[in-house]
């Protein structure tokens, strides 16, 4: 369990990054900080492994004030995954994963054996072990980043916009992988993103932040969506634009779910049409309705589970 107690962080130039932030992040759950740039979400994340220290207030992990712990030792016990994977470009994949266990004194041979197992865990072929990061695709690099984060078998996994730099299809794949890993491993995950759909998909607890590190709303995705506390949250989750208000249109071949702006959101499953015909219809439907602007078409069937798509 991670507890923020009245945490404030002020940059040297005086701007407030985080303002009087108090929150409990429950163990074995995923908490997502979501907000625009300048909302202090990355600062909040980095205060958990003391890459940034609060100006005032304190943070406890399992009841211990981390301000009293040695930062390097603390970090070696917490998984950390960042955007663009942050892998060491001069080390092979396997050595990137084995890095932190070796820093903690694990013999090289054992660290490498465990690294190979971790590649299996994150769904990477072992044949990639001896490549350099630049020889992998963005999605593969990100998987290695996750494997490295898991290498010390931490209770806490910090993820700073880890899927921000990969294309939408790979991102959706990585998100599903993370959900699978979370079901299997049950870590306390703290995830930072600016993508509200990602936040709602991954988060057990979602924290919406406004500029200057102020909390706009905290709750489960369902709570926030059903009951946005104010205009800002409503705008942020897209409820005001009708993006979350869906209705069904019949296109002859099948029932298509459309939001209020006319953007295609998905297909109605369980209707009489076969899924392949429905998905073909959804693509032609998107063309007729939204022209080339809509990128939602090919992703329609997948997005239907979430009931919306922001892109």
């Amino acid at each position, binding site marked *: 369990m991670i507890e923020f107690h009245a945490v404030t962080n002020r940059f040297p130039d005086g701007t407030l990054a985080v303002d009087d932030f108090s929150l409990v992040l429950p163990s074995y759950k995923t908490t997502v900080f979501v907000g625009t740039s300048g909302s202090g979400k990355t600062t909040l994340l*980095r205060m958990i492994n003391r*890459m940034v220290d609060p100006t005032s207030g304190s943070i406890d992990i399992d009841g211990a004030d981390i301000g009293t712990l040695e930062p390097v*030792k603390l970090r070696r016990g917490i998984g950390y995954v960042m955007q*663009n994977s*942050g892998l060491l470009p001069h080390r092979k994949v396997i050595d990137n994963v084995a*890095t*932190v266990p070796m*820093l903690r004194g694990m013999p090289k041979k054992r660290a490498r054996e465990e690294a190979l197992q971790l590649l299996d865990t994150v769904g990477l072929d072992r044949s990639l072990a001896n490549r350099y990061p*630049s*020889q992998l695709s963005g999605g593969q690099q990100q998987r290695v980043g996750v494997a490295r984060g898991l290498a010390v078998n931490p209770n806490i996994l910090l993820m700073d916009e880890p899927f921000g730099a990969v294309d939408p299809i790979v991102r959706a794949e990585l998100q599903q992988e993370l959900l699978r890993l979370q079901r299997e491993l049950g870590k306390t995950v703290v995830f930072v993103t600016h993508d509200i759909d990602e936040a709602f998909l991954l988060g057990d607890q979602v924290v919406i932040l406004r500029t200057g590190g102020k909390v706009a709303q905290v709750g489960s995705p369902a709570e926030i969506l059903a009951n946005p506390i104010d205009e800002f949250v409503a705008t942020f989750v897209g409820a005001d634009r009708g993006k979350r208000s869906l209705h069904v249109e019949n296109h002859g071949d099948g029932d298509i779910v459309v939001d209020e702006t006319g953007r295609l959101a998905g297909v109605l499953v369980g209707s009489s049409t076969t899924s392949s015909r429905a998905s073909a219809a959804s693509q032609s439907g998107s063309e007729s309705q939204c022209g080339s602007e809509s990128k939602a078409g090919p992703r329609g069937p997948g997005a239907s589970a979430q009931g919306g798509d922001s892109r």
Partner: protein
Amino acid sequence: MTWIWSNMDLIWDRTLDHLVLSVPSIILSFVIALPFGWLAHRYRASRAVILTTVGLLYAIPSLPLFIVLPFIVGTSIRSPLNLIIALTLYGVALMVRVVADGLGSVDRDVQQSATGVGFSGWTVFWQVELPLAGPVLLAGLRVVAVSTVSLATVGAVIGAQSLGSLFTDGIQRGIQEEIIAGIVATVLLALVLDAALVLFGRLLMPWTRRSAIGVAARNSAVVAGVTT
């Protein structure tokens, strides 16, 4: 050509003399430039002072330096040590800026993530920043190596033996072949040292050549994927 064939021993000896002067100078330049370059990279205040000072150092003409140096450090004027010190000074002058720039070229994200996963301050420097600055450092070291080899010949004017002695001797005695042999041998030596550094770099930094190919291949694949 007859002069060259009958004096191969002499040319070989001068080549060895030349190596004794230049190799230690190149190594020392690198080792000494490292902390100064780090200081210039790390602290804004020291950057201007250090870089200006080493810049001025390079502006000192070589011949006067060879002559003045023995009075400062107490070596004999013809001692190889005298020359090694002078050549090292010039090498440092070139290399400090390269070290500062090389460390500055390291991706901030990589440093941040290294810190984030638990590298301590000095392990970040030795295991992350320094190796990643490697390609820039190597490029600088190649310039230092070639310039040191060519500067070392000037020592011949004050009587320190090197391949430069072949020019001075050849001019005094009017042996054109000796002059040409001196020039060609100096160029060859510079090329050999340069090639050795490149080879050394490849052994030490295997990720640089592989990634170059990998990235190019992937980029073109991405472009192809986008356009189709």
